[in-house]
């Protein structure tokens, strides 16, 4: 029995319970992840991190949430009131919706009824997630536009451009998965990965997805829409109180959502890692949920790790990266995958498939070398044109022992 059929048999109560569980799961995971992020970043910077509120500071995020809820709610005079209020609501609701199609466990029994922890199974589940994510971005864009001040406006503009370009890359990276799985339903894709994870088979797709999911969620090093150094708070500069809390919530739920999607599409979903398949029957199938969690948490850790390590990209560099690298590479990769898939489906001999694959690898290497050479040449030919100044520029008489650090190795006299 496929998951879709399992879920179709759910009674009304089961659906309600599952919906509640998914919601609670999201909220709890968000609270924990806010705390977890601050603790993890703290450890990376050799400091303890929040540890006073509750055991190990566990309810730190809850305190933040309650405090925000108790704060005064400000609406700036220059703001467009309706849109200003609507924006955080759009952000916060849509981020939860994508969880409806994520398969969290395999077959489990819920109060004696056989089901799977997945709210619904759409035949176009992944497309649904992408669509919902795009709607969520409206929250950010509208927030920036309606605040009536320059920083949020710039943040909102950046965000809309960012999401448009990274959604393209993200969508393209998923095409390979669809081709291989032969389906757009999340549960079918998980089922298709029971032997090989797509993260291994379709590694380039996985890498592109992983990069664009960071861009999609506005996280470091792609946190341009917030960019504290330049735009203060970006789109949420003018937000306070509960409305800000909703954005805060949405950001973390989004991280969990894209991580969950990545787990589903590339890391075998709720399936145990290879060799540990026997654990899947434990606890009546609920153990598969633990595998799912652990994979999501690995992604979450990577998110935190990136934030602790990398500076922010500049806006134009970020767009260049998206349009000039991620998207062309995705398209090429889809061509390759489609060809390989067709070849193997048509029953071409194995040698042809391998030959084609190695031909592509060689081609990529050659292109890379050519590209590097071109870059070097470009660097060499790049002469800065300096107009002669009309006044005296000091000539350097100095016999000072100096080290020119931009010319790599050491010079000067170390007496």
């Amino acid at each position, binding site marked *: 029995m496929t998951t879709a059929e399992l879920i179709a048999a759910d009674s009304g109560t089961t659906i309600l319970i599952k919906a509640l569980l998914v919601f609670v799961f999201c909220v709890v995971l968000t609270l924990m992840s806010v705390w977890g992020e601050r603790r993890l970043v703290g450890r990376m910077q050799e400091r303890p991190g929040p540890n006073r509120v509750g055991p190990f500071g566990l309810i730190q995020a809850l305190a933040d949430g309650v405090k925000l809820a108790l704060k005064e709610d400000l609406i700036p005079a220059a703001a467009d009131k309706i849109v200003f209020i609507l924006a955080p609501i759009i952000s916060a609701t849509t981020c939860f919706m994508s969880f409806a199609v994520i398969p969290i466990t395999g077959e489990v029994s819920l109060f004696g009824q056989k089901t799977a922890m997945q709210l619904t199974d759409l035949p176009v589940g992944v497309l649904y997630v992408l669509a919902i994510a795009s709607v969520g971005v409206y929250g950010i864009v509208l927030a920036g536009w309606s605040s009536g001040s320059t920083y949020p406006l710039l943040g909102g503009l950046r965000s809309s451009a960012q999401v448009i370009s990274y959604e393209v890359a993200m969508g393209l990276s998923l095409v390979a998965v669809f081709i291989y799985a032969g389906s757009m339903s999340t549960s079918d894709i998980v089922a298709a990965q029971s032997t090989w994870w797509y993260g291994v088979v379709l590694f380039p797709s996985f890498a592109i997805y992983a990069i664009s999911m960071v861009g999609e969620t506005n996280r470091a090093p792609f946190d341009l829409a917030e960019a504290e*150094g330049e735009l203060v708070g970006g789109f949420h500069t003018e937000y306070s109180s509960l409305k800000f809390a909703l954005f805060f919530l949405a950001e973390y739920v989004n991280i969990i959502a894209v991580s969950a999607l990545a787990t589903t599409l590339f890391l075998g979903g709720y399936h145990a890692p290879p060799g540990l398949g026997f654990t899947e029957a434990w606890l009546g199938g609920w153990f598969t949920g633990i595998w799912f969690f652990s994979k999501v948490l690995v992604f979450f850790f990577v998110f935190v790790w990136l934030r602790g390590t990398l500076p922010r990209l500049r806006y134009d560099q970020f767009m260049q990266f998206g349009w000039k690298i991620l998207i062309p590479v995705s398209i090429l990769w889809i061509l390759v995958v489609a060809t390989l898939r067709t070849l193997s489906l048509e029953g071409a001999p194995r040698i042809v498939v391998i030959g084609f694959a190695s031909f592509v690898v060689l081609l990529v290497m050659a292109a890379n070398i050519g590209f590097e050479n071109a870059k070097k040449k470009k660097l060499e030919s790049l002469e800065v044109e300096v107009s002669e100044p009309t006044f005296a520029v000091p000539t350097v008489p100095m016999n000072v022992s100096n*080290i020119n650090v*931009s010319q790599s190795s050491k010079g000067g006299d170390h007496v």
Partner: protein
Amino acid sequence: MSVFDPYAPSRDTTEGTVYSVTGGDWDSLVQEIGSTKEERVVVNMGPQHPSPHGVLRLVLELEGETVTEARAGIGYLHTGIEKNMEYRSWTQGTTFVTRMDYLSPLFNETAYCLAVEKLLGITQDVPERASVIRVMMMELNRISSHMVALGTGALELGAISPMFFAFREREIVLDIFEMISGLRMNMAYVRPGGVQQDLPEGAIPKIREAVKLMRKNFKDNTTLLVGNSIWMKRTQGIGYLDLAGCTTLGITGPVLRSTGLPWDLRKMQPYCGYEDYNFDVITADTCDVYGRFLIRMNELEQSLRIIEQALDKLEKLEGAPVMVADKKIAWPAQLAMGGDGLGNSLNHIREIMGTSMESLIHHFKLVTEGFHVPAGQVYAAIESPRGELGAQVVSDGGTKPYRMHFREPSFNNLQATPAMSEGGMVADIIGAVASIDPVMGGVDR
């Protein structure tokens, strides 16, 4: 405004029209400006903004993300230190100057004291041990100052961790300052004629240990930033300012050295005995933010070299005086902790109270009135972490400065902001300003 208006006159300059506004003529003025200019996005960064170091205000005119015009507004931290010093004695002056550029207090003090000593004509009489201590303290200070520059610079470009590693190093240096002077910042440790007090017992081995530790730790930030392709992309070719630009704008320090000119006053016009130390001037010829950060990173190592040589000298000069011999200038307090945990050395108090009336009078006069400084004016310049820090001092022969003026490197260097950032992106301004490393306390004084 064609008709001359006595209340709001305007004149046209190369920077645009300058209006003098008094009272309630704002409305007419705004109307006039509004009717002539086309619509544009003007972003007002600061004076309270997370990035531009402290209370700097940047007014940016944007076209999309590109900055077409950038103007810096300063004065939000103007403290009137120069004026206030005219009402205090020469010794009290160090207490004020130390609070100017709060990231490099010892440089302010040394520049001021060198100028006062020049006025007094005792430059040659300052004991060698005092000069060596000054050099050591200044180089430690250079490390702590560069650390803040690197940490905040990285933070402004979006990398949070380097900040924490930088402050870890800074704490090591501040601990040494606290051990020597009793204060972490604003220590007023350098005084005209020498330094406030000698190193405490066991200071030298402790500093040696700290130097070793720092040498090991410096790698952390370098590896986090240099070689990180995002950081390189954000810094290379950004904030370009070549030698011609630097000289015409009077820019000194790491920004000047990033054009390849090895101009460092420690080498070119040595003071405090810098000619006796072996070290290299760090330059780069990239003229950009990357080069400036690289210079700062490498100057740390040179500072450690100087500190080690200073420590060797100090060991040889054990027990030597740290204040000029002239009792008319030397602050009479031989500072030491009394039995009550407060105050002055008991021996000193016993002497002035018990044995010598003249000592008491002398102490009283010197502490309340201060010493007289012969009339004249001098300019003393030193190489602070940000460039040439010059103290322009005028004396009228009295016990207080007649006029104090500081030529602050940050004040001057900040003028390069438009030249470095116009035509770039919004995010580049942050990097360019961070590479100048302005400290607003110094800019506004």
